[in-house]
């Protein structure tokens, strides 16, 4: 299914509920990112197998799949952190330049962060200036204004001097999103932004991401939570080394696709246009 096909008023259109659709969001001729028959192997085991995928400007997409299914590798390949063994990745139709100049923001898994590192919220976000100010140039008035604007957008104003550990899970994620936003990216990649967060924090994160996407920044995230994806994201990709399915979550999250992706039976409920996925309980032993 192509993202061109979204219908106005569809609860799973390219836009979150309540956000007005913008004609400029419709995919133009050149995708932001194009993966053509991309393969990558870790030693003898395949991480990505002949994956072809297009990410359009302003798109909001989730990549779901099992552990070790290649989700993070796919993000790393787009960022140029791994060299694909086969196929090619084009950024706006061209071979990628230095990764820093590609205007792609990246938010890693929070689990990888050293929470004892002595660093404040403002210092983390200011790391995003690195792309433009590599050497001696300090942070001037213009940069400081931009920093505070982003903090305000992410509801972090007043928290700049706090240690990152003192924030809630949602605010911590917002700080790392802020760092990615500072480079004015056209695309933000997030590795499991909802992982380990409580319901309130996950709600905050998806709210930030919708806001960012509304400002025409494409958002691609990985997630293990199919229900969260189905409830909030207009587009999903099911990946298990190879691309199994791509489309609106309420259309591609069905028993057959999920069985192929997760190699197990999952229960799929549909109610009022919403799809919900549950685990099938094991039969009790006598």
């Amino acid at each position, binding site marked *: 299914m192509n993202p061109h096909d979204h219908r106005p008023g569809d609860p799973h259109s390219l836009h979150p509920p309540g956000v007005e659709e913008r004609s400029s969001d419709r995919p133009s001729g050149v995708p932001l990112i194009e993966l053509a028959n991309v393969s990558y192997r870790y030693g003898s085991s395949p991480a990505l197998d002949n994956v072809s995928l297009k990410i359009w400007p302003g798109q909001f997409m989730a990549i779901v799949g099992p552990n070790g299914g290649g989700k993070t590798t796919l993000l*790393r390949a787009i*960022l*140029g*952190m791994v060299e694909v063994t086969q196929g090619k990745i084009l950024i706006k139709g061209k071979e990628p330049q*230095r*990764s*820093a*100049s590609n205007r*792609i923001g*990246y938010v*890693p898994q929070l689990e*990888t*962060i*050293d929470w004892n*590192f*002595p*660093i*404040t919220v403002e*210092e*983390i976000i200011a*790391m995003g200036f*690195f*792309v433009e*100010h*590599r*050497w*001696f140039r300090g942070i001037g008035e213009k940069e400081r204004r931009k920093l505070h604007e982003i903090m305000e957008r992410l509801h972090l104003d007043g928290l700049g*001097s706090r*240690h990152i550990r003192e924030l809630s899970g949602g605010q911590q994620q917002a700080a790392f999103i802020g760092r990615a936003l500072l*480079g004015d990216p056209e695309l933000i990649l997030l590795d499991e932004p909802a992982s380990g967060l409580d319901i309130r924090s996950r709600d905050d994160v998806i709210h930030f991401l919708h806001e960012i996407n509304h400002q025409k920044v494409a958002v691609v995230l990985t997630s293990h939570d199919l229900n969260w994806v189905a409830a909030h994201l207009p587009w999903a990709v099911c990946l298990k080394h190879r691309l199994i399915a791509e489309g609106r979550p309420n259309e591609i999250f069905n028993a057959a696709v999920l069985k192929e992706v997760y190699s197990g039976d999952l229960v799929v409920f549909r109610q009022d246009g919403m799809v919900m996925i549950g685990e099938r309980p094991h039969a009790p032993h006598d």
Partner: protein
Amino acid sequence: MSILIPFDYEFFRNGFIAAVIIGALCGFIGVFVVLRRMSYIGHGLSHAIFGGAVLSYVLKINFFIGAGVWALLAGGLIHLISHRRWVGADAAIGVVTTSSFALGVAIISTHRTFTRNIEAALFGNILGITPTDLWIVVITSLIVFCALLLIRRQLLFSTFDPEVASAYGVSTGKIDLIFVTLLAITVLASTQILGVTLVAAAIVIPPVIARYLTRGFHRLLILSPVIGALCGAAGMCLSFYFDISSAATIVLTSTALFVALEVGLWIGRLGHRR
């Protein structure tokens, strides 16, 4: 007795200036050493330099040239070995530095003229520092300070979040190599002052103390060298009045500050519970 009496002596003035500069330099680079969990490398590099110090003494070449080349080689080797996937950085440091130290000991055992120079390399000779040594310390420190300031953004990014740093275009491998080289130069400059056995303490203790006082990185980068310089100054004065080894007093001063902070916090926590 005036507190300024020791400054009447040139040897003390030279030693004092060197202790303050080296204290600040070790405190500055120490921030990155501690945050990168490389505390062992400072200890290891100083031991590796011992091999170079002994060799330069035996070959009758300048300490800074002989031990300097040795330190850079050791730093490069550690970097190379630790980037092999199956060898950790700690193991790489262990292999390179203990081998180098052993080489120094082996050379000493064949040249039985164990002199003050080797003793100075082991335990420091801050009061014997010559004006030329002092200039070398000043220039070396300036170079390392400037280089660290120049790459501070890359260093912070690659220390805090190496994966994302590389995604943003930081050449983390190159930055690691530059950092190890700067550390080797710092250890080399400090060895003449503090001795092989005490350099690591000057690198590690000031940033650890500073971490008690701030939660922010940039404040840490200011506080740690200030603490290092103050401990250097206080240690020098105390060593004069109590007539004990200057290098040991500098380290013990910073240790006393660390213990005082820890005890203060412990008492504070105790009071808070009540």
